[in-house]
């Protein structure tokens, strides 16, 4: 379970540049589906990596599903060496994505995002068509159901 209000606040106060994607973005657009984690696309500039590290460090990030006690270091080198990280934190499960199929990296996604003010915090969220592209590109069986719902939401918005 993730506390969205706290998680958004933690990231925003630290100045992290991120875009909300996945099920949380779908919820923002009106989806009724349950998602258990927060997926964000983060900008991979050195400054933003440092902000992200500082923001999440107090919340004990660790690789989700990994055995306890692995030598996982939450630092800039680790983020530079990888791209996508599925983490457990004391805020809940957070997926950090350097890029997403169907959308690309932060800067590629940015023109197709809108600023959403939620809990008094401004967050970036892809528009519905972009979110559909990302979900279509993911192509997992569960994504087909999610795409069907998102496309239905688009139809409802157009009514």
């Amino acid at each position, binding site marked *: 379970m993730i506390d969205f209000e706290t998680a958004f606040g933690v990231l925003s106060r630290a100045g992290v540049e991120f875009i909300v994607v996945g099920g949380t973005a779908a919820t*923002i657009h009106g989806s009724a589906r349950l998602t258990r984690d927060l997926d964000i696309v983060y900008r991979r500039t050195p400054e933003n990596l440092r902000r992200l590290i500082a923001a999440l460090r107090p919340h004990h990030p660790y690789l989700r599903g990994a055995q306890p006690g692995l030598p996982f270091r939450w630092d800039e080198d680790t983020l530079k060496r990888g791209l996508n990280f599925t983490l457990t934190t004391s805020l809940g499960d957070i997926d950090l994505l350097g890029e997403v199929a169907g959308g690309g990296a932060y800067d590629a996604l940015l023109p197709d995002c809108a600023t959403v003010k939620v809990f008094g915090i401004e967050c970036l969220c892809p528009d519905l068509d972009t979110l559909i*592209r990302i979900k279509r*590109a993911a192509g997992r069986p569960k994504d087909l159901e999610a795409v069907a719902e998102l*496309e239905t*939401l688009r139809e409802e918005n157009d009514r």
Partner: protein
Amino acid sequence: MTRANTFVEVSLAPDPVIEAYKKDVDRTLLRERLKRSVEERLRDLTRLQAVAEELRRAGRETFG
């Protein structure tokens, strides 16, 4: 419509599989969701997550 990006070109053209899934989407539920603010939608999700978590805990405790 297609869009080139880092990895793949993704079409938004109707897809027969997705169209088949759409028949099962509950439009009345979505219409209710669309009446709620973004903040309310996220608060609803948090509550739903808490309920799902509690049901999983109860299931583990009962059925192992």
